[in-house]
């Protein structure tokens, strides 16, 4: 914030003309010179330090957004283990807040100073891979794709090639308060009808039957996707009846007061707090909440996402992060690959995923983790039928997601009916996709 400055008199009234006016030609030429200068990529080139070949340990740079525990400690432990096993390599880690990763990565991309290992939220990989900034893995190794869940593997695949490997994945399921269900003599819901009935029965006083998250961010689309995809709707066909029926489910909850109106301002963390405090009998959330819930006093159970009709299969979106190797020079990339590769050893995958409440994409590790922690069974089953968000839309996903979450919000606050909201969204989606 600049302090208010009144123009000093001398600048204004020097013999009738201001100093600026007298040097107007000079100012005009500086201005045009600057304009031309900005068109030149003078400031666009930074140099990344080339690795010293034989004089001491190589320092690999690594960036993620896991500044908070438990992920932070889990990563620190893995890095310590890696450095112990590779004495000639050191990892220099930078952790930024979640929202800052993409801007920082873009800034580093333009100055050619991307880290040696870059962690990305899995929908972001498609964009980066398409620019050629990431090194394809087939230059280091061949991966046995059958050992991985197909959904998570598709998040790291671009144009048929692998550009990274998942650190871990998560999806969404329904957590329910066992105490409340026992008291009301109810069984956890399997279908949409049962979900609505249970929510209705359990709404009383300060407690809402159901809680989900629908804020003005990707979280809203993410939370909506299980219901959308299970109903066999999709984002690019958001105006179709299946999608509208999914939105209707949410709108019914809000209209009848079985879910709080505040969901449009709640993040998934806020939803977890509501569930923990007993303000919600059921919540839609992911496995990363397990470390927190275990510390609380809630007696909770987990069931898969309810289906519209019995016999259908829940389809959940795949969250989670991936490790990628930005392009630098072949030697550095090979060393960086070691860091990515060592994580895929089941023992390491299980340790990291367990701490973060994730599930490994590598099937043997996933089975091992679920054997140790049976509460993850529901989430792992959904992983088998889970879908990557960027599957069909690729780089258009962020734009379409924003259109959809705005439409969801307008239906939830009542400014539009679900049908009208999604029909308008369909028009906008078509425009965004250039149809």
């Amino acid at each position, binding site marked *: 914030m600049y302090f208010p400055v009144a*123009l000093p008199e001398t600048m*204004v009234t020097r013999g009738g003309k201001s100093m600026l006016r007298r040097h107007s030609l000079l100012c005009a030429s500086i201005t045009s010179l600057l304009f031309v200068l*900005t068109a030149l990529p003078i400031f666009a080139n930074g140099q990344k330090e080339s690795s010293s070949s034989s004089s001491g340990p190589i320092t690999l740079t690594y960036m993620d957004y896991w500044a908070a525990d438990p992920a932070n400690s889990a990563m620190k432990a893995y890095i310590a283990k890696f450095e112990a096993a590779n004495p000639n390599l050191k990892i220099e880690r930078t952790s930024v807040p979640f929202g800052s990763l993409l801007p920082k990565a*873009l800034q580093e991309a333009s100055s050619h100073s991307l880290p040696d290992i870059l962690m990305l939220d899995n929908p972001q990989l498609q*964009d980066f891979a398409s620019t050629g*900034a990431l090194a394809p893995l087939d230059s280091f190794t061949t991966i046995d794709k059958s050992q991985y869940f197909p959904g998570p593997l598709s998040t790291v695949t671009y144009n048929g090639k692998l550009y990274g490997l998942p650190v871990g994945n998560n999806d969404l399921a329904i957590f329910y308060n066992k105490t409340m269900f026992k008291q009301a003599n109810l069984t956890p819901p399997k279908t949409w009808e049962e979900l609505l009935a249970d929510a209705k029965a359990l709404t009383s006083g*300060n407690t809402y039957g159901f809680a989900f998250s629908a*804020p*003005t961010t990707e979280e809203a689309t993410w939370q909506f996707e299980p219901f959308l995809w299970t109903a066999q709707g999709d984002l690019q066909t958001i105006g179709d009846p299946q999608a509208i029926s999914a939105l209707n489910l949410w709108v019914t909850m809000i209209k009848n007061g079985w879910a709080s109106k505040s969901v449009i*301002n709640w993040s998934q963390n806020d939803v977890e707090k509501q569930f923990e405090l007993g303000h919600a009998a059921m919540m839609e959330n992911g496995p990363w909440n397990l470390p927190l819930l275990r510390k609380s006093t809630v007696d909770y159970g987990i069931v898969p996402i309810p289906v519209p009709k019995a016999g259908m299969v829940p389809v959940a979106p795949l969250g989670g992060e991936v490790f990628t190797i930005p392009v630098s020079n072949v030697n550095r990339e090979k060393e960086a690959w070691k860091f990515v590769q060592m994580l895929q050893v089941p023992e390491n995958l299980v340790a990291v995923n367990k701490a973060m409440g994730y599930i490994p994409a590598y099937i043997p590790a996933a089975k091992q983790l679920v054997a140790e922690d049976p509460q993850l069974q529901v989430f792992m089953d959904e992983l088998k039928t889970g879908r990557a968000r960027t599957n069909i839309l690729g780089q258009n996903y962020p734009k379409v997601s924003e259109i959809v979450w705005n439409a969801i919000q307008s239906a939830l606050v009542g400014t539009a009916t679900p049908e009208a909201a999604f029909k308008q969204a369909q028009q906008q989606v078509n425009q965004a996709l250039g149809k």
Partner: protein
Amino acid sequence: MKKSEINRARSLRRTQRYRLLFLLPVLIEVILVFVYPLFNNIRMGFQHYTIASFVNGTAPYIGLKNYVEIFSNPLMGKTVLNTLTFTVGSIVFQFAIGLLLALFFKLRFSLSQLMRTLILIPWLLPLIVSATAFRWMFDHTNGIINQFLLNMHLITQPVPWLITPHLALLTVIIANIWIGIPFNMVLLYGGLMSIPDEYYEAASIDGANAVQSFWHITIPALREVILIVLMLGLIYTLKVFDVIRVLTGGGPANSTQILSTWSYSLSFTDLSFGQGAAVGNVLMLITLVFAAIYIRAIRASLTSSR
């Protein structure tokens, strides 16, 4: 010309050169930190800028296409309207309350110094902190504001501050007013203190009451300060970003989306950096218009008051 005149002209030019030299470090800093990014943004408005542009530097010029797209976007009208409502609503009340507080503190009672310092707190707190606090205070079910209003029996149902489209804009305006009051109060108080007491004494001798002396002495004497406060407040409010980003993120359903938040969302959510830059340029133009009015008004008041 006589020799002494030539020498005087030469020394004047030398003084001018020294003046320019002193300005040089500041000029360089302003150019690098302010002017260069500004021109960059103007240029980006004419380019198709995507993630690929960051990596490869390829950003083809597409003329006015970005501007056509943002102006044909139905969101543009809504965003401009929100921006105007937000700005006018914030300024009017910030100024009024700031002026009232400044007049109040003119009374110089025993704790006035301490209280005046405490009132600065909204201005000193990082915006993220105040905005996050407000977010939870205004929460529908758990917020302290609704609890207070319910307990005082002023309302029967909790008010959905941040989750209803029309109320959400009002709520962010309230938060912004709270944040902006200290700035107005401090400047107006400084202006008030510089009005000589003799004016008021003379007025009371002539039989003027409080309202008349306020209207005919205080306000005219404060004219320049009022101008500064209003214009700068206007320019700062047009740029507000953090408050809205944290309180509502621009929602629900774009009801609190203003030009600054929309520009950010276009760039970092949609990854259409060219369009984001275009919206940013539109905002800059609007701000420039007000800045020009401000400079002209200051110049006019300076020359007229001599």
